């Protein structure tokens, strides 16, 4: 097969990013942690199931009985009963999702920021840009390489956990697979900040501070209901403006969990406004990159 010149060039840009990412320990570390995770679920966790409820859960042989606290419909009193198996499965999956959402994104941008910054250092970028491909295509190859790596890692983790749990329990929750695009997407939103800052300043430290700072701010934005009642004009408008403008990394979590658990999503705003923010930041980064003097 004869590949066209643009295809070969694009593959070069992708390959450069892949190799660079695999040469860092963070990527390898995430792979190892994911492997431990599904191996753990496969071998260390044993379930005794009686009539659809979990009679006993053994982890490394230590036994416990997971319980649900529910209200008796007749007396209205709280009582305990052994947990429904489907609930346990969804619980474990939500936990895996939540952990990979946070850890995956935080560690992902931690690995990607120095990588992107090293690409735009003077001793590397001049030679790369002198090659006969457009700056847009070159940067797109890099960004896609980063995205593809995150997509591969999250697919590996989510798919393996999903398969192990489903095969073990016979309970298949397909909506859990939505965790793959959600993690990749929210990583992408935070990475857009890294890319924009690195392209403008060349500093991975500054990029990390900015994106972690935005995640920190999103903790505050997530408390909007409480905060808004405390604020008066113009503080209220400013806060709301920031709420819609900045990525809502934290507030997106409960709604993303609803999505992953297959429940109806109550509020799309945190997810969509984050995506819009990411799209604008990527656009800005590409524009700046295509004009910059290196």
């Amino acid at each position, binding site marked *: 097969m004869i590949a066209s010149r643009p295809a070969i*060039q694009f593959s070069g840009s992708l*390959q450069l990013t892949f190799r660079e990412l695999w040469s860092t320990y963070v990527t390898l570390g995430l792979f190892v942690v994911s492997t431990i995770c599904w191996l753990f679920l496969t071998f260390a966790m044993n379930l005794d199931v009686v009539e659809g409820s979990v009679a006993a859960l053994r982890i490394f042989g230590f036994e416990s009985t997971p319980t649900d606290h529910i209200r008796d419909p007749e007396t209205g009193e709280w009582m305990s009963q052994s947990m429904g198996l489907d609930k346990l499965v969804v619980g474990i999956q939500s936990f895996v999702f939540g952990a990979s959402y946070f850890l995956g994104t935080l560690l992902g941008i931690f690995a990607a920021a120095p990588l992107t910054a090293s690409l735009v250092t003077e001793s590397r970028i001049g030679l790369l840009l002198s090659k006969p491909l457009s700056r847009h295509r070159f940067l797109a190859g890099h960004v896609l390489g980063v995205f593809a790596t995150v997509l591969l890692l999250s697919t590996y983790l989510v798919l393996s956990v999903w398969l192990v749990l489903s095969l073990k329990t016979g309970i298949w929750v397909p909506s859990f697979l939505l965790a793959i695009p959600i993690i990749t997407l929210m990583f992408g939103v935070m990475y857009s900040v890294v890319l924009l800052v690195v392209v403008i300043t060349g500093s991975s430290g500054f990029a990390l501070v900015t994106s972690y700072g935005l995640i920190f701010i999103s903790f505050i934005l997530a408390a909007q209901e409480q905060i808004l009642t405390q604020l008066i004009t113009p503080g209220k408008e400013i806060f709301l403006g920031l709420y819609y403008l900045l990525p809502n990394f934290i507030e997106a979590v409960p709604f993303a969990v609803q999505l992953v658990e297959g429940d109806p999503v109550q509020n799309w705003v945190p997810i969509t406004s984050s995506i819009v923010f990411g799209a604008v930041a990527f656009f800005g980064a590409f524009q700046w990159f295509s004009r910059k003097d290196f």
Partner: protein
Amino acid sequence: MHDPVVQATSLGKQYSGGFRAKPIQALSDFSLTVHRGEVFGLLGPNGAGKTTFIKALLGVIRPTSGSATLLGQPIGTPASRFRVGYLPEQHRFPGYLTAVQALDLYARLSGHDAPSRKSESVRLLGRVGLAEWADTKVKKFSKGMMQRLGLAQALMGDPELVILDEPTDGVDPIGRREIRDLVTWLSQSGTTVFLNSHLLSEVEMVCTRAAILNDGKLVGQGSIAELTTAPAAYEAQGTPVDAGLPGLPDGVTHDGELPWATYRIHADSPEELTAMLGQLIKAGVTLRQVTSGKRTLEQAFVEIVADAEAAN
């Protein structure tokens, strides 16, 4: 065949200089033409704007005024760089790649297909003397080996134009010699070479033509023979006369060696030269030949730059 390989017209570059710093005019009104088959040297002291010019040609920076073409294509377009190889002034290849992998990667970015990438990297690693290091990781390479690998990279895909920015900088004398040989070999095989250097003797040895850049401005250009011709200086050979001979004109000195003496003449115009020669003849000198005075490229450079600075 006589289309220019590099053509710059009034190229200018002003760096914004960053926050609150005043802008830097790194290149002003710079026009230059390089023809096919030449080995062209761009000379100038550090900070003269040589690297700026090369980066503008390759689209790494954008000129703020003027225009230029590379192999007939406007600069800044991928098409202008298809057949161009480049060795940057300072370059670093990813350390985890082997020499072969590094060459393969950069050739991929140029769009070369797999079979040609493979055969070219073997051929060129041999050419630059790195054949036995093909599968060694780049991070173990010395500065000189890095430079050779960089050269091999610049030659991948048989480019029509090779641009080298300070190729011998930081390289030991043997390495320099090898690089000079490589440039000569390239030029013999029909490749146009454009190189930047502040090392004048290097340029004098390999280049066919050169331009001198100072403070962003072109202050001189021509063939090496033209540049090393001293202006207003001539040498005449003829029969010797006594040093104290009355009538020997001002501006003429002479070595009275037998059988032919050399008269060094300073004359600002052909009329003045003719008049002085007339006086020599009147004084009884039989002339054998008259030539332009020579200077080394280094002298030429110092004089041209000094003239340019005096003119400012």
